[in-house]
């Protein structure tokens, strides 16, 4: 390995080192704040290091890894989100009195796994990244052992994720069996638009199952609400942003590389998945009374929207998907921040009832939450609107009218349940409401930091998105060109 290789892997090394440091620290003396601080520093450092790496991109570490601008962008997203999750977790966990410090090791490792996915170009590294991510998540989800729900969610995630890993692996094996390579570039060159044999098709189908599970799209979505609901709020935020971000980065890279748009059957499969996700996700969320479950179902729908961008298959689709994913990450992170800030040891504030009349007691928090809901619903002045617009634009460019119209109609359904949350917050408070300790707790500095940052980003991207768009164009547009040129 050369110095450049090491240099380009800097962020991963930083994160991995931080995990080791935390382990050592725990061995020396348990201190929640210090551990959290180290993790934060690691994420910040890793994030900053990305800017230096732009100098050497694209850089390939054959055969497993490739570090290009696209990967850098997604890593940036992952680190930023992890940073926010760390802050939230610190806030969330500090009221518990059992061993908290290992949590941060798991968090660091999970982020490491997700970043690995972003830079993978080989089945081996993909598998490794995915498993690092998953195994850390099992533990994270079940971390607060005192809560039955945590254990239940952890178990469900463990079994089902392992099952889906098995599908993914079997799919990979079949693809390997039929193509003879596990490297994405090689596969792309081998395929070059050639027809796929049945073995490869089944392989791809099984891989879709594995990836679909991680993305929680219909029909692999059944676990989502339970896990979102059961996991501690910061972990849920992590699943919704980092885990899905990493997997989606992989999905884009892999299927763009092999130019999926040449294979109608795969496109149809994804279209079916996208449409089903949009419809089922939104309809399932319709009358839910638990905010975390609503957000879980809505995430199914949002992944469906993302797939629309992906399926558009024009020069906008990667940009649109990335932009949307970023906007979604900001928004959902904001939403879960509030849930987690209002929750604590006493209870998890996740029932709709808990939010009734919130606006009149915590106006700022509610205003932020409202903004997040509007962003999810895709209403202007928020990043969500820009994202949704971009997806629609990509869809219209490719004349994917069916997908686009389903998107529009289902987002109307979506509107309803986002508004339900808003309505609850703005409805007049009644006196006979039980007092909730979580609701009245003041928000710590770290919480304010996260919320303020997210809200500013949300509105900034919503009103002045041009800089953000340029960034995305610079960073990720290359993806398609790179692979397209390679095929030729």
């Amino acid at each position: 390995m050369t110095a450049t290789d090491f240099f380009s892997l800097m962020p991963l090394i930083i994160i991995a080192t931080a995990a080791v440091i935390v382990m050592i620290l725990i061995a020396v003396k348990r201190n929640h704040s210090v551990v959290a601080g180290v993790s934060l520093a690691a994420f910040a450092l890793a994030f900053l290091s990305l800017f230096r790496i732009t100098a050497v991109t694209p850089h390939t570490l054959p055969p497993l890894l490739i570090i290009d601008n696209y990967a850098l962008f997604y890593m940036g997203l992952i680190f930023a989100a992890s940073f926010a999750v760390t802050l939230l977790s610190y806030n969330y966990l500090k009221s518990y009195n059992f061993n908290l410090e290992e949590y941060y090791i798991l968090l660091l490792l999970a982020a490491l796994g997700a970043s690995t996915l972003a830079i993978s170009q080989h089945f081996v590294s993909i598998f490794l990244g995915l498993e690092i991510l998953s195994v850390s998540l099992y533990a994270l989800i079940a971390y607060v052992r005192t809560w039955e729900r945590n254990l239940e969610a952890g178990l469900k995630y463990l079994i089902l994720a392992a099952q889906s890993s098995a599908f993914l692996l079997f799919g990979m094996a079949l693809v390997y069996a039929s193509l003879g390579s596990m490297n994405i570039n090689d596969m792309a060159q081998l395929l070059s638009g050639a027809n796929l044999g049945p073995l490869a098709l089944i392989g791809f189908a099984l891989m879709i199952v594995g990836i679909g599970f991680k993305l929680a799209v219909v029909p692999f979505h059944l676990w989502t609400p339970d896990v979102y609901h059961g996991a501690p709020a910061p972990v849920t935020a992590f699943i919704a942003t980092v885990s899905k971000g990493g997997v989606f980065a992989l999905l884009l890279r892999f299927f763009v590389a092999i130019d999926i748009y040449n294979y109608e059957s795969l496109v149809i499969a994804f279209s079916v998945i996208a449409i089903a996700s949009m419809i089922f996700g939104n309809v399932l969320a319709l009358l839910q009374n638990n905010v975390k479950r609503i957000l879980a179902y809505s995430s199914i729908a949002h992944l469906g929207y993302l797939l629309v961008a992906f399926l558009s298959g024009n020069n906008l689709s990667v940009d649109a998907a990335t932009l949307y994913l970023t906007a979604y990450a900001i928004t959902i992170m904001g939403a879960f921040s509030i849930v987690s800030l209002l929750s604590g040891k006493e209870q998890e504030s996740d029932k709709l009832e808990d939010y009734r009349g919130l606006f009149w007691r915590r106006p700022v928090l509610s205003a932020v939450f409202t903004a997040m809901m509007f962003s999810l619903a895709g209403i202007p002045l928020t990043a969500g609107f820009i994202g949704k617009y971009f997806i629609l634009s990509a869809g219209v460019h490719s004349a994917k009218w069916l997908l686009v119209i389903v998107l529009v109609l289902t987002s109307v359904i979506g509107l309803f349940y986002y508004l339900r949350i808003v309505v609850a917050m703005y409805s007049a408070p009644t006196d006979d409401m039980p007092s909730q300790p979580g609701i009245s707790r003041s928000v710590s500095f770290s919480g304010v930091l996260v919320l303020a940052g997210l809200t500013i980003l949300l509105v900034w991207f919503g009103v002045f998105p041009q800089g953000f768009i340029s960034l995305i164009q610079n960073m990720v547009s290359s993806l398609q060109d790179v692979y397209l040129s390679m095929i030729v």
Partner: protein
Amino acid sequence: MISIPMEFGLILAGTLFVLGLIGLMVRRNIIFVLMSIEIMINAAGAAFIFAGAKWGEPDGQIMFLFILAMSAAEVAVGLGLILQIYHKFQTLDGDTVSKMRG
């Protein structure tokens, strides 16, 4: 050495995989469920080996090693979790560990 056609191997792996799946779907005891998953993952590993053999590459076997390692990690975490669940629920019946629904 008589070479076995890859397809046979894949069929074997597939059969194993489906067996694991069936176990996953019908068993209630979480331990057995975990075992079924191990079967599935190993079936996938076997498929890799057969594929590697077809192409005459070591890649498949390398992949199998990775799979082995990761599944060990997974089982470790899984068993830990099962321990906690047994503490909390006093049962290993997967169906009873389902408070959340809807």
